[in-house]
């Protein structure tokens, strides 16, 4: 109150005490706090946005592949074309001109079509798979020859794309895969009720094909199964054995340190390097067959071993020492204590790790490209030494194909692959929840 005038004049600028300072800074600090929280929310939001974008794009492109357009034809099984010799011998029947039968049917349906080029575009409406279908029918029942039957055959992939709305009719003719004439024919077929979309069983039962409407994932799925079977048979015992040795028996010395460092490093080596190893060692040095699931399985075994070993060691570590000591106390040998008591208790954790490793192996592509599992293989593989491909590689191959119809098939194959992966991971989670014991 009776401060000097100089003091009074300074009162406005006087440094405030620390409480005031803090109070003055609070709004700013709280704002910063809010902002920081929002950064976090935005980050998670973006990650989830990417995730949903990924799934929307895959599902949006792929769900139509589960349906396929079929065309109804009234086929006359012309004896002159199918069985010119007339003796109904199976060899002659399977060599019959079924393509000619289909073409004749189409010509009968559109009698006004003249000229070689127009006819050829007409034949393009129906898939070449129709020929095979006719042959199968005749071989199964030769009495069909000479009869007329109504049957549904797969349409060509371009027709399929049109029916699914992936071909824009408003484009100028030269930019379209289907020409004006073809559009008119298709419209007529639709008006006559001869075009129908049905569930695409071919996609789940066929092997690869150059024709999208005949291509399926079954061949790749079987290849994946063989490859994973080899991987599982090798990597599970080896991984568990390594984990048991390192966790229970190994002396602490330089050698075991080296093994540990090695395993941790192998877990981070790029997968393509394992492919190079497979190519140089298994194929060129040991002379194992290229493109075979057995080589794929070996490479994936080496890749998944670190995952399994690390998980198994963690599982072994989580078993309390009292169990081991109790077993040793009643006279079990060290080996008996481990194999009779500790391993069974650690098994759920080990299995969880193995399933996760298998899921990784199922999605792996790059090393399998190196060992030649990218070949175009139509047949369903019948064993681990036969040429095969796997689901992710099939996806890669289809993704490279220019046809629009392969885009939706690629997406559909991805959906199948993801379904498998999600199932496996869910299994791992359930296993962990159900059997994990907290000591």
């Amino acid at each position, binding site marked *: 109150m009776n401060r000097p005038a100089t003091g009074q004049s300074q009162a406005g600028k006087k440094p405030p005490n620390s409480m005031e300072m803090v109070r003055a800074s609070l709004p700013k*600090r*709280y704002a*910063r*706090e809010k902002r*920081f*929280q929002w*950064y*976090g*929310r*935005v*980050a*998670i939001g973006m*990650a989830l946005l*990417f*995730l949903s974008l*990924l799934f929307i794009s*895959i599902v949006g*492109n792929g769900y139509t592949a589960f349906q396929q357009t079929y065309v109804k034809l009234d086929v006359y099984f012309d004896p002159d074309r199918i069985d010119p010799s007339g003796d109904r011998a199976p060899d002659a029947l399977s060599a019959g001109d079924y393509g000619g039968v289909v073409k004749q049917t189409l010509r009968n349906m559109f009698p006004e079509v003249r000229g070689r080029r127009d006819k050829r575009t007409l034949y393009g409406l129906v898939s070449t798979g129709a020929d095979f279908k006719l042959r199968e029918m005749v071989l199964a029942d030769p009495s069909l020859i000479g009869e007329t039957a109504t049957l549904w055959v797969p349409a060509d992939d371009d027709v399929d794309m049109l029916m699914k709305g992936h071909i824009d009719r408003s484009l100028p003719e030269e930019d379209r895969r289907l020409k004006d004439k073809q559009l008119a024919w298709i419209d007529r077929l639709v008006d006559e009720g001869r075009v129908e979309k049905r569930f695409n069983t071919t996609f789940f039962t066929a092997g690869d094909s150059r024709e999208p409407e005949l291509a399926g994932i079954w061949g790749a799925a079987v290849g994946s199964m063989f490859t994973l079977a080899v991987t599982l048979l090798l990597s599970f*015992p*080896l991984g568990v*054995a*390594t984990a*048991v*040795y*390192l966790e229970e*028996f190994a002396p602490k010395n330089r050698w075991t340190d080296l*093994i540990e*460092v*090695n395993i941790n*490093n*192998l877990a*981070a*080596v*790029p997968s*393509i*390097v*394992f492919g*190079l*190893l497979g190519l*140089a060692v298994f194929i060129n*040095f040991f002379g194992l067959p290229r493109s075979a699931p057995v080589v794929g399985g070996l490479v994936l075994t080496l890749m998944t071993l*670190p995952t399994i*070993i690390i998980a198994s060691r963690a599982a072994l570590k989580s078993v309390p020492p009292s169990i081991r000591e109790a077993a040793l106390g009643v006279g079990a040998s060290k*080996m008996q204590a481990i194999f009779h008591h500790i391993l069974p208790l650690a098994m759920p954790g080990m299995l969880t790790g193995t399933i996760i490793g298998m899921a990784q192996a*199922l*999605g792996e*592509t*790059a090393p399998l*490209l*190196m060992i030649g599992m990218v070949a175009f293989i139509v047949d369903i593989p019948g064993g681990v030494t036969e040429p095969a491909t796997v689901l*992710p*590689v099939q*996806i*890669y191959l289809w993704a490279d194909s220019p046809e629009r119809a392969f*885009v939706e098939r*690629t997406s559909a194959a*991805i959906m199948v*692959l993801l379904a498998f*992966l*999600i199932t496996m991971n869910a299994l791992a989670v359930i296993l962990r929840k159900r059997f994990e014991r907290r000591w």
Partner: protein
Amino acid sequence: MMQAPYLALALLGLTSVGYYLGRRRAFSQASGKIQNLHSLPSYYGFYAALWAGIPALLLFAAWLFLEGAVITQVVLAGLPEELKSLPPDRLNLVLNDIRNLVGGNIVSGEVSPAIQAAADHYADVKAASRLGLTVFVLALALGGTAWAWREIRADKRARNAVEGTVTVFLIAASTIAIMTTVGIVLSVLFESIRFFEAVPITEFLFGLEWSPQMAIRADQVGSSGAFGAVPLFAGTLLISFIAMLVAVPIGLMSAIYLSEYAGKKFRAVAKPLLEILAGVPTVVYGFFAALTVAPMVRDTGATLGLSVASESALAAGLVMGIMIIPFVSSLSDDVMNAVPQAMRDGAYALGATQSETIKRVIFPAALPGIVGGILLAVSRAIGETMIVVMAAGLAANLTANPLEAVTTVTAQIVTLLVGDQEFDSPKTLAAFALGLVLFVVTLILNVIALHVVRKYREQYE
């Protein structure tokens, strides 16, 4: 003669018989009283089974391994003189013809009588070999069982013998990790050395031009390939850099939010969703990049008046960043959870807000671990293959412009090695040299990162 799988099954059957016999033998030796035995009866069974199975199995494996080479030698020795004197590569063709004839495949050209005779010889030798294999393996299995049968007495220390064998198996399994590393190093190194004989290592590491076309004829256009890998290294670094620009901020901030702010319910939903990103196969990301992101980037660029290549580095880098987000977030989550609660409480007690605590206390304390995690993520980005194969270009441009197409080390390895290949051309060997660089770089990054992470963990333990 027996097919290999059936022989393996027969062997399995014999081992089970061995187990049964060994057990019975032990009982009869102990005159039916278990307390007279040194070990539990099942150990005698295992003892006999091991004797039945292991020697036969070893012979089986060795036979299958050596069979091909031996048969080839025998058939070669039996060839007529004029075929034997052919140069090695022609001789290989002849051998292939013979093998194809035996396998019933299509043979190139006409089959001469000499080759037909050799093929018959080959088939005969192979049949004899298979017969020998069956006989010897089964005989060895029976012999092993008989030996064990003789050995088993009441005071035989069967448990010790069985446990010793199991220990050997455990040790052998644990060396596979080492053998894998050695195998990688040797396979990559040998081929690389052969490559560096054709192309000087300095040109490979410092050359600015990459066009690995080797002409079939010497007078073809562009007959001399260029193997300067700098554009590939630059492309790899560019794409990895873009990926880290996406992954590090998003991954780190999501980890902070999830571990420090998020409520239990939100965390329980968001964390598994983030982990789904980690479980998606890379080929799916590649397809996503090529089908959705690349056109999106190009169209956005076009509306902004920029010309963007349809296989731009930006698209590939963006998608790779998305792939790495969960990797960064889970690693930094671990690391930040390891910071002791006392440090947090200390900061709160001084009146710091939560974000100040995170920024000034937890983050600096966790920094070494986070850096280690980021290094691991970088090594992952460098080694990632499918995304760049599918979404980045193949043109080796030396540029820092993310809107142009670049190519990477991994994409080139795939292009060089997929499809028809002769194993001796510099073109295929170059892939191994690139693999060597890739392995060495990622190894160094991993060793540093693992070391940093481990050091950091010890600090707070």
